[in-house]
């Protein structure tokens, strides 16, 4: 068996180290000879750029698309049935990795949204709000189990339609989505114990608008607590990633959920606006701060409940005593996970100046090992950018960063010709005033800033209109607590990043929104109480 290339070393049975034995100068200790031979400029080169990988091409390991069967067209899911839109408008949804069209999807107009809300209202009034809580739990448990059973199918479709690597949809999105349903199923019959001395009641119909970065997971974050609390929902998936939500409708039918409890309307921002203006009792929105503000203006004075989970510009703060190699993993996970399409992404790296140099070198080296490409390949680390407009936004901000004087680094990597791609990027020499340190890029772009003292780290971390998440890397427990008390962020991760659990509340400070999702806190926005209203009301 002769190798077909790639490993960069000869594969024959001849043993190369024999030569060492006969060449005494190099035999006893490798080190002095090597050291003497090393050319400083050579070493410098290695240190400064050096992606670690060359040579070994892993053979393609694509996950099969066969598990997913797509229809040509998907109508709106209203009252337990797929119906054609009265608007008679359709659009095509694509795979961002190849730009190949996957299916036609309905574009819901005002009338369609009205019909969906009416269907949810009927379902709410005719049974769903009155069935025994244990029955509600039963449906949710059922959905959770079906999610697990059909997870491979959903994961493949998620990667196909959204561009995220299959290893992420398989190992993160799907298990977490199922976990959310399991978790909230458990609360459905315990609401009275969850809020002692307050009588919780469902709100009615919840309009839920979700983003394209975690289509199915955000669906789970929205639908599971709403149903557990006894509401019915009208969900609008993002324009570019409607397919897993539409496949989810199949699961809803499979679970025999009463018709109208879950409705799905697809479309662009106009559909979302129609939902906001419709006869719902609550709006839950995850997306950009700009749209969030518009929704808040729209709802002011209407009495509708509102929760917003908006943008972020999280600081990932690394102190000089941190476990460096693991911090590098955390930084990579913080910003290149899901191509940086994460509202809580650690997009600002704040590193203590005394270790900035070695840390950035380690980070650059690690970037060289990231595998960018086919989202369905099981070895892909970074997938496709979700849409052309998003790609253009990333390009614009990266160009701004270069123009402002930041130093850009991208590892050499071959990007596919078709589809939307952006190489993992690090900016060093970034000042707090640069756009790339202030604005949410929502792409695989990291801005590195330095600090000298813990106080300065807190000050810089908080110096942003956002406040969704933050990360602290230090071996010192007391410093973690000190930082966590001072960081104005909804989630503070210590020695980890982008960890989610259904039992843990998630949400923002300042322009990152209000209201919490996950945990007991995540039930409150879907309930009303006798007496004082909780926050978000």
């Amino acid at each position, binding site marked *: 068996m002769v190798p077909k290339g790639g490993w960069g070393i000869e*594969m024959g049975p001849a043993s*190369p180290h024999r030569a060492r034995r006969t060449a005494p100068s190099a035999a006893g*200790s*490798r080190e002095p000879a090597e050291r003497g031979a*090393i050319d400083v400029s050579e070493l410098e080169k290695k240190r400064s750029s050096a992606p670690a990988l*060359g040579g070994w091409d892993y053979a393609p390991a694509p996950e099969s698309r066969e598990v997913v069967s797509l229809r040509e067209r998907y109508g709106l899911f209203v009252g337990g049935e797929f119906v054609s839109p009265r608007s008679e408008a359709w659009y095509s949804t694509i795979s961002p990795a190849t730009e190949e069209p996957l299916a036609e999807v309905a574009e819901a107009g005002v009338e369609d949204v009205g019909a969906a809300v009416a269907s949810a209202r009927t379902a709410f009034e005719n049974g769903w709000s009155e069935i025994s809580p244990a029955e509600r739990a039963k449906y949710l448990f059922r959905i959770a189990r079906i999610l697990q059973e059909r997870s491979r199918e959903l994961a493949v479709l998620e990667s196909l339609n959204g561009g995220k690597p299959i290893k992420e949809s398989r190992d993160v999105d799907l298990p977490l989505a199922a976990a959310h349903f399991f978790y909230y199923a458990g609360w459905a019959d315990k609401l009275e114990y969850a809020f002692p001395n307050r009588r919780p009641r469902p709100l009615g119909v919840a309009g839920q608008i979700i983003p394209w970065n975690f289509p199915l997971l955000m669906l789970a974050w929205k639908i599971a607590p709403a149903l557990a609390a006894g509401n019915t929902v009208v969900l609008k998936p993002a324009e570019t990633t409607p397919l897993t939500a539409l496949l989810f409708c199949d699961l809803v039918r499979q679970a025999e959920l009463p018709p109208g409890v879950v409705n799905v309307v697809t479309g662009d921002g106009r559909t979302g606006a129609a939902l906001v203006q419709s006869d719902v009792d609550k709006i839950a929105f995850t997306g950009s701060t700009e749209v969030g503000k518009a929704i808040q203006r729209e709802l002011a004075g209407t009495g509708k409940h509102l929760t917003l989970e908006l943008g972020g510009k999280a600081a990932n703060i690394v102190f000089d005593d941190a476990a460096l190699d693991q911090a590098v993993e955390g930084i990579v996970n913080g910003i290149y996970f899901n191509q940086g399409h994460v509202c809580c992404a650690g997009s600002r790296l704040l590193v203590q100046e005394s270790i900035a140099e070695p840390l950035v070198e380690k980070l650059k080296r690690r970037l060289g090992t990231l595998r960018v490409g086919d989202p369905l390949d099981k070895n892909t680390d970074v997938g496709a950018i979700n849409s052309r407009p998003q790609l253009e936004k990333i390009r614009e901000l990266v160009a701004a960063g270069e123009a402002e004087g930041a130093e850009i680094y991208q590892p050499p990597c071959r990007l596919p010709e078709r589809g939307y791609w952006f190489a993992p990027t690090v900016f060093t020499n970034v000042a707090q005033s640069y756009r790339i340190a202030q604005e949410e890029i929502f792409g695989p772009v990291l801005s590195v800033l330095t600090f000298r003292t813990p106080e300065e780290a807190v000050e810089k971390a908080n110096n942003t209109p956002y406040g969704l998440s933050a990360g602290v890397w230090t071996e010192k427990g007391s410093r973690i607590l000190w930082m966590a008390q001072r960081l104005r962020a909804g989630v503070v991760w210590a020695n980890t990043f982008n960890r989610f659990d259904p039992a843990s509340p998630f949400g923002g400070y300042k322009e990152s929104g209000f209201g919490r999702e996950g945990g007991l806190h995540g039930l409150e926005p879907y309930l009303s109480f006798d007496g004082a209203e909780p926050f978000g009301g």
Partner: protein
Amino acid sequence: MGLIPFARTPDYTRLVAKAPALPAGFELPLEPRLPRIGSVDAVALEARAAELAKRSIKREAKVFALELAIRMMDLTTLEGADTPGKVAALASKAVRPDPTDPGIPSVAALCVYPNLVPTAVERLRGTGVRVASVATAFPSGQTPTDVKIAEVRAVVEFGADEVDMVIDRGAFLSGRYAKVYDEIVQVKEACGEAHLKVILETGELGTYDNVRRASLLAIAAGADFVKTSTGKLPSAATLPVTLVMLEAIRDVHEETGRMVGLKPAGGIRVAKQAVQYLVQLYETLGSEWLTPELYRLGASSLLNDVLMQLRKERTGSYQSPDYFTVD
């Protein structure tokens, strides 16, 4: 505030720099330089190791990995019951692992107890397969240093190409790092031209921090290789432990340009594990380390599974274990 400025006076620096038994950088680093001892975060480390273990290695890439695994293998027998006959049989296997397929390369080395070194040397002369011997009161290392040195001299005299020593864990765990360091330096000296692998016995070190510390200590003392385990404990090589050691080796390389080898040993029984170890190696240290000069897999039962997988890749079907020799 009296203490801190005092600690940084030139006098103190001079004292530290003079401390004879400590490797540079092993105490408080006075300059911001790597490798600092630093620390290891267990949760994140294990997550990274698990992530790398999920790489899906198929077809040509798998064949490369399996062939490389054979070329990197230290075929090992370390039993009280070892005899010249057993070692001779294993030597033949080492040279030609699969008699039906001449394309299969020889393993890197045969690893035996000191008394079996002469047999191994005789059987392997001229074959390209090296002879490695454990020494220094393997596996416990709880013996006076001069006895250990005498043992090392003996195996080198017998003709061993490589010496696998154990560190004195008793000294390490009681904080007597200097003793551990000194002993490695002396063993290295006694090795002469023989290649020195230093076994940390990570299963007894208790924490990843200690694994990193012991790796840097051994490297600073002159180890050509660091090796995880004796194979005599239930907890031997694991992916996270080897990842810590790879990262220590990487830091040393970044700082000094020196390339140190790694040998995970114990508990690697099937081809799939071997591929996982190689993926971890490749993605941590890069293709320069994909050579038997810098990486070995210590194993006694791994070889047949690798051969079986290779034959499956060649023929498309699994063969009965009866078609592979048991030595």
